[in-house]
């Protein structure tokens, strides 16, 4: 019996040796396989996080899963999108209306998910259009753009679209200062004359409707990025600035002369109160407010004619400037609301300001002069610490829930992890290449979900199979749950992701809509049942009320259309089954196809130019009989008297 025991012990010993070997192997070669396991989402399983990556110059927002890096959807926001007909369909054309007319594109930068008490609540995601200043609200139950508001007196809506911690406001700070109001004047009279508008757009708590409440007309600096105060600093908003030199040409040199620019601390609650009490100046303006209604499936555009502007010197104690070295770009606030991180993009160091020290400096009037009547606080009085990073070109910072911060470095191409409080660098990992923003789900809130970090890079070079001179940007996923960051995965993105927002999947999964209810369809041209399908003419306008169900259009034969008519096809999809859209396209259409979701109505305009019999068909492979889902329109000469008629199955 004893012998047996010894031999078992011996075997155990051997096993230990083998396990030991495996362990030592793991730290090197086997690392890649454990990384693979961490990002592998088996067929049929789902990711644990949503990630919404801005599409930059694509004008759209893309939806990804983490940790797999799989793209689920591209949500059209500021750009026409033939895939769904967004911006081409009659219902969505008004969404892209501006004071400059129809602008079918924008540069989408910074998504931010709505919050309650500083925590992600998953109702909406807000995004900004940088070029023709706009803000958009996207529903997180339909994943469609519901609202776009243009920002007047602004240009380059870059320090946007960040929200306050109860989604009271979404801000839109201008990157380019401009004459306010716009007027014909020499460019070189910029200094002292141009203004930088910081716009505060309120969000209605029940339906998310946006309203431009007031604009603070700041000195003509460039307002780059911004973050809300949270918890103790709730009520404040922080904007980084560059070009406090107010140069109007060769900015790369002229705007890099001051050793320090500013982070502007704006007490929006104070200004809100000032405006509520009748403060501010009503200024004539002209800006578009576009709203898409989920039940009429239709967007409407209204031009607004007035805005309240606020002169910052009129509200003493509302705005202070915090000197921040080296043209700060990122301006980030930690989850406690105590620290404001300014990343001087030409620097090696990261500057951290303290909210408490800022309040004390204001109290003690520790000023270092003023700029256009706005007090500048003494740098030393507000400085909490400096992170001696060892990197170069810090840009953006996100946070975990364990007291650490993660900052991207564009020039040295890396992510650096550091401790909030001791300012000590804890870890660094390379990115591929030249990282811009980074995103930790909830990393810009009181409650980060700090398992993964996504780094979004500006340069791709050799990361993927080459595709000619133009390539999609690369992104990397890191596991940040341990002491050291671990690079897990690398995936191409779409357009140019600037910032991103992420949240746990369970926040959105249950409320994602599967269909639109046909019985709630309030579209002006709905076909509520196939027996109400018809064709109506008024002058040269023809309205086709058409319904679809697997696998036919009602009607599918139409006669009596003439050259020169404007034919509006109003397609109502009668499916009430998840993921059964029908498409519609017709030969010679000068717009795009439309993709109609179950229960939805969409309209496409067709202007027939040639006599003949022209087919239309369903563009979405909807069913086994999809190929049969087609029809004909007979187009007669303009002076013909072929009577209007329509039919199905006759």
């Amino acid at each position, binding site marked *: 019996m004893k012998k047996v025991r010894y031999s078992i012990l011996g075997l155990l010993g051997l096993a230990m040796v083998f396990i030991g070997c495996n362990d030592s192997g793991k730290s090197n070669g086997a690392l890649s396989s454990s990384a693979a396991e961490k990002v592998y989402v088996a067929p049929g399983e789902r990711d644990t996080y949503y990630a919404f990556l801005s599409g930059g110059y694509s004008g759209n927002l893309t939806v990804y899963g983490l940790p797999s890096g799989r793209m689920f959807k591209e949500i059209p926001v500021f750009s026409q999108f033939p895939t769904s007909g967004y911006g081409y369909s009659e219902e969505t054309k008004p969404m892209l209306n501006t004071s400059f007319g129809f602008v079918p594109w924008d540069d989408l930068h910074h998504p931010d998910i709505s919050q309650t008490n500083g925590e992600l609540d998953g109702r909406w995601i807000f995004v900004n259009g940088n070029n023709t200043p706009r803000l958009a609200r996207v529903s997180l139950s339909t994943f469609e753009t519901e609202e776009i508001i243009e920002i007047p007196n602004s240009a380059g809506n870059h320090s946007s679209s960040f929200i306050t911690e109860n989604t009271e406001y979404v801000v839109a700070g201008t990157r380019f200062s401009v004459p306010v109001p716009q007027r014909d004047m020499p460019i070189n009279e910029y200094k002292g004359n141009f203004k930088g508008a910081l716009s505060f757009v309120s969000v209605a708590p029940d339906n998310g409707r946006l309203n431009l409440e007031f604009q603070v007309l700041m000195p003509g600096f460039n307002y780059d990025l911004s973050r809300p105060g949270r918890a103790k600093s709730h009520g404040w908003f922080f904007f980084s600035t560059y070009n406090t030199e107010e140069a109007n040409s060769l900015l790369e040199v002229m705007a890099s002369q001051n050793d320090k620019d500013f982070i502007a601390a704006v007490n929006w609650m104070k200004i809100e109160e000032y405006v509520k009490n009748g403060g501010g100046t009503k200024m004539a303006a002209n800006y578009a407010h576009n709203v898409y209604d989920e039940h009429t499936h239709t967007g409407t555009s209204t031009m607004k004619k007035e805005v309240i502007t606020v002169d910052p010197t009129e509200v003493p104690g509302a705005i202070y400037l915090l000197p921040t070295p080296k043209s700060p770009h990122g301006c980030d606030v930690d989850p406690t609301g105590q620290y404001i991180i300014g990343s001087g993009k030409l620097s090696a160091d990261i500057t951290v300001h303290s909210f408490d020290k800022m309040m004390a400096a204001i109290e003690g009037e520790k000023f270092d002069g003023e700029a256009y009547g706005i007090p500048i606080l003494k740098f030393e009085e507000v400085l909490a610490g400096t992170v001696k990073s060892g990197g170069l070109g810090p840009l953006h910072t996100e946070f975990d829930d364990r007291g650490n911060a993660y900052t991207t470095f564009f020039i040295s191409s890396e992510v650096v992890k550091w401790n909030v409080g001791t300012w000590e660098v804890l870890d660094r990992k390379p990115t591929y290449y030249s990282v811009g923003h980074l995103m930790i789900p909830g990393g810009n809130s009181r409650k980060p979900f700090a398992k993964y970090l996504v780094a979004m890079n500006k340069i791709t070079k050799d990361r993927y199979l080459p595709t000619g001179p133009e390539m999609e940007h690369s992104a990397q996923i890191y596991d940040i749950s341990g002491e050291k960051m671990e690079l897990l995965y690398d995936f191409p993105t779409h357009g140019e992701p600037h910032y991103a927002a992420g949240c746990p999947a369970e926040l959105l999964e249950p409320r994602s809509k599967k*269909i639109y209810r046909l019985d709630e369809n309030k579209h002006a041209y709905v076909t509520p049942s196939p027996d109400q399908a018809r064709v109506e003419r008024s002058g040269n306008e023809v309205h086709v009320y058409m319904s679809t*169900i*697997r696998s036919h259009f009602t009607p599918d034969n139409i006669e009596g259309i003439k050259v020169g008519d404007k034919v509006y096809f109003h397609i109502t999809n009668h*499916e*009430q*089954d*998840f993921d059964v859209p029908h498409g519609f396209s017709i030969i010679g259409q000068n717009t795009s196809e439309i993709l109609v979701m179950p229960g939805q109505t969409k309209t496409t305009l067709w202007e027939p130019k040639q006599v003949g019999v022209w087919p239309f068909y369903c563009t979405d492979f909807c069913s*086994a*009989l999809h190929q049969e889902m087609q029809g004909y329109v007979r187009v007669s000469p303009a002076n013909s008297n072929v009577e209007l008629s329509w039919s199905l199955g006759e």
Partner: protein
Amino acid sequence: MKKASILMILGPLFLVGLYVFPLWTIMLGAPQYPDPLGIHIHIDGIRDVNEFDIQNIDGLNHYIGMKTLPKPEDMWEFSTFPIIIGVMVFLGSLIGLLALIGKLKYPWFLGWFLIMSVLGVLGMYDFNAWMVDYGTNLDPNAIMKLANPDGTPMTYKPPLFGHTKMLNFDVTSLPATGAWFMFTGMMLTVVAFFLGRKHQRSKRLFT
């Protein structure tokens, strides 16, 4: 006898559950339907398991030429069954009540059970006959006309009980909550009968 009579009053009352819960449920799952479609068969009509399931089942069935699922007004059963169940509940509980006050004897319990069983079997027979008609009486102009390996036209009768594979669908047909209420209620009346008989016999022994 008191205990038996109370059981006899309660048993038929369980059948009231049929007015709330479905008698039978048929589920249809397929690769494209990871969340299966389904119908609940109630005594007064057919209802969706999830909203729009009936519409979607009808939509799919039109390919193979099946008729749409019947609305309550399309079948006499859906207006008659609730009345029959109501009458049987009333009669059953009445028997129990009369037994409690000594006006009736326990064999009536079994009588009620047997009548209910016969009605149940007839109901099942009727249900099955409808499914045969539904699954085999197909539109001659159906989009898809499929044949069995032996050349006979394929039919689509759902199983009365259990699982069948029909084309891409897995069809499962099982009694639902209402049926279990009915089963429990009917079993209680059987128990009532035996308790009644036992009581009667012991009474005879002692007298």
